């Protein structure tokens, strides 16, 4: 995000006149609404906001947001966004990508925008499938996923986007899901973070990978399946009856029972968004034995890439003039007399 004067807008101001063309019931609708609801709340200026995307269902997103938008090519949105931010750091750039776009064809660029820490919000819609190309398995599909390209079930292990992002050096990692009422607060935190903010949003592809996240997003499973992290608060779930503790023998996380709300006695740890080691453990917690870690998992800013580059450029320019005639005549020269 950038320091700019808050602008008064409403959700309606962020809607375009274009017909939204996702499948009816697609999780993308909920994400779009959450973003359009969040933008007025953070005082965003449509003229200074740019949505950049790659290719895939998720990447149609910019067409539906009344701001500047650039629908680029498959996987490369981070590189376009980097050029945009270096050319004009005043622009507030949101990147919309998917598990195929950001983790497969564009994995390299995802790594480098995070490593460089370009000040953008990166929303990776993870539906664990290729939707636009009609249902092939993706790099985040679980082992055994049956798809047109894996009729016998996929055999490769899935990538973990948040673990990848942390490994690439990201300074902000968060997770949410499409219909979550807390998605907006996660987006706000991502926007407040100065630097590359990586948000994995589980998104329900109702056509090719329906309800693949239901075991923690449904009402019946939410309490035991979701661990919502809040900085400075104990890691509790299951209506406070369970918590996450650190097993000191193995230096790994474990689930503990909390009796009568006495989480301290149970050894439940307090979430600290600057604790990178715990963040690594949280994003790798296997779902099933553990709940799904959601919310802001890690948030520890460092100087942004574009600010550092521009400061260095300014230093290099200090005291020098852009005299082209002088530059052309530089070096050892000689004169031919008339």
């Amino acid at each position, binding site marked *: 995000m950038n320091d700019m004067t808050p602008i008064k807008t409403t959700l309606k101001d962020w809607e*375009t006149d274009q017909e939204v063309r996702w499948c009816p019931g697609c999780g993308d609708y909920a994400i779009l609404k959450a973003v359009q609801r969040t933008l007025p709340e953070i005082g965003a200026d449509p003229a200074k906001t740019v949505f950049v995307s790659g290719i895939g269902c998720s990447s149609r997103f910019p067409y539906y947001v009344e701001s*500047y*938008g*650039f*629908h680029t090519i498959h996987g490369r949105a*981070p590189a376009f966004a*980097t*050029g945009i931010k270096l050319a004009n750091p005043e622009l507030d750039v949101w990147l919309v990508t998917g598990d195929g776009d950001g983790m497969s064809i564009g994995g390299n660029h995802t790594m*480098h925008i995070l490593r460089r820490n370009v000040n953008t919000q990166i929303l990776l819609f993870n539906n664990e499938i290729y939707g636009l190309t009609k249902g092939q398995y993706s790099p985040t599909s679980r082992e055994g996923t049956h798809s047109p390209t894996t009729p016998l079930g996929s055999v490769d292990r899935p990538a973990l986007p948040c673990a990848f992002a942390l490994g690439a050096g990201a300074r902000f990692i968060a997770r949410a899901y499409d219909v979550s009422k807390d998605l907006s607060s996660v987006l706000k935190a991502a926007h407040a973070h100065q630097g590359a903010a990586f948000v994995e949003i589980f998104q329900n592809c109702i056509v090719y990978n329906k309800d693949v996240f239901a075991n923690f997003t449904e009402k019946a499973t939410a309490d035991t399946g979701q661990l919502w992290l809040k900085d400075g608060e104990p890691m509790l779930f299951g209506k406070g009856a369970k918590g996450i503790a650190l097993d000191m023998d193995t230096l790994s996380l474990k689930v503990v029972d909390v009796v009568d709300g006495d989480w301290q006695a149970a050894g439940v740890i307090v979430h600290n968004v600057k604790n990178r080691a715990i963040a690594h453990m949280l994003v790798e917690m296997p779902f099933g034995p553990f709940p799904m870690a959601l919310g802001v998992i890690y948030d520890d800013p460092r100087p942004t890439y574009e600010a550092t580059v521009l400061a260095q450029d300014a230093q290099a320019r200090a005291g020098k003039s852009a005299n082209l005639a002088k530059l*052309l005549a530089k070096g050892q020269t000689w004169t031919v007399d008339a």
Partner: protein
Amino acid sequence: MVTALAEGPDALTGGTTPAAPEAVVVRFAGDSGDGMQLTGGQFTLSTALAGNDLATFPDFPAEIRAPQGTLFGVSAFQINFGSTEIETAGDAPDVLVAMNPAALKTNVGQLKAGGLIIADTGEFNKRNLEKAKYDQNPLEDGSLEKWQLLAFDISALTLEAVKPFGLGNKEALRCKNMWTLGLALWMFDRDRKPLVDWLNAKFAKAPVLAEANIAALNAGHAYGETAELAGPLKQYHIAPVETAPGLYRTVTGAEAVSLGLVAGAQLAELPMFFGGYPITPASAILHNLAKLKEFGVTTFQAEDEIAAIASAIGASYAGQLGVTSSSGPGIALKGEAMGLAIMTELPLVIVNSQRGGPSTGLPTKTEQSDLYQAVYGRNGDAPMPVIAARSPADAFDCAIEACRIAVEYMTPVMLLTDGYIGNAAEPWKVPDPASYKPFPAKFLEEKNGPDGELLPFARDEKGARPWIKPGTPGLMHRIGGIEKNPGTGNIDYSPASHQTMTDARKAKVDGIAHGIPQQDVALGTEGGKLVVVGWGSTFGPIHQAVRRARAKGLDVSHVHVRHVWPLPTNLGDLLGQYENILVPEMNTGQFKTVLRDQFLLDAKPLNKTSGQPFTIAEIEAAIEGALA
């Protein structure tokens, strides 16, 4: 090989009152670790300071440090200087400086009959002879009789010269190239002072190295003056070439492109964003521009070739002049992104320093084989203007022209140079920036539709759409690679829309032909028996060959095309006035195909794909053949 320059070596090695040679070609060859490129580069500098027109041609192996003494580790540097207008690095060398047996073996075949070999006997030992696959020492077995031979122990002489400075053996031997350079400077009556200054500056932090190198330089120079070598090493004072008055410097193609891009951005009144990824031989442009921040240049070393162009397109979208640069394989990777720049109609300059292909091919050699890639090499109907520089100095004007077209027509433009242009140096009359007409970029500030709506894909008289910078209040809109409505730019797959937009993109690029100069005849007449048509770095050898042929009375002209796509509007009619058309190219006939396709002309190819530039003689022979 019969050439007009053949008097050179005879004069050089002849009697007491030789006729001054028209031009002299000297080739320095040694191990890639011997610093041959440095020697050649410095000799170039001193020659330029002496006022001789010159051209250079580096020829080095792809391996940074190939195994010492081997045939494939030979690095060479050729310089052609003389008192006529020089346009190529020359044909066969008159003088070959061979620092070891491998250098001799790989280069002597090109030396003119009667030419001079200077060889370092210190390196002609059993081990090195074996590595170079010599059964016996060629310096002693009479196999070099065809040439003049000067063989002495440069290694020992260098060691002796630098002895007072207490260097280790290895370090002391590194001064060999300076010793050789000193000898060459003496041979061609060159001033040592610029080199002494340069060495003092280069080794400012290690004065003893500066002194040792200067001592070696002086020793080589002094050696040339010794009586016993006076015969073959006759001194020649080569008269300075007559050039237009003004300030001159030497410039390589990579430097000229960099400077031209800076000038182009200034003329467009835009900051420049350069996204690049290291690749031979294009990296030099990124290196140069990284040092020019005060000219509003931002350079970005991207994670790959695709990110390099993508970031440049992103910067153009945000209102800067986006530029990217690469060589063949990297250009191939950028193809999809070029299509996006064509589709979204954003300005972009893509510099392609061509090398030999396909795939990795010949990374350090030269070729012109990316013409198809430049003109046709994208998916869909994706027209893009292409400009080709003919020489290092010409690359400056071409870079400006590429910037102009990109900004005025809202289109990506490809600028073609090649390994030869990029690395070669030539004297350059320093241009006055004020003599170039500015082409300031305009950004849309308010809605442009007839009913007060925003039409990001409305077109001006050139067919260009408006450039709309994000951040401009009230002009929010979306662009992308999907086919769009001809006015609003909204997604529109309809048959009529794709037809209209395809036609509009083609018409816009075709229309550039009306905004470029008419094709001229570089040498000769409009119409005649034969025209030799070239593009890019073949200018020098074609021009010289045509000049020689015309001097013999042959009816031949030279046409050299800068605007490879779209072609000048008069080119077809102009070429139609000749009975025969010959198209020499360092590829298998790509521009020939374009000419045949565009004008239904019977253009005949002359092709070379050895990684080396054409020699004058090769083209001259083809001219004679065509007119026989």
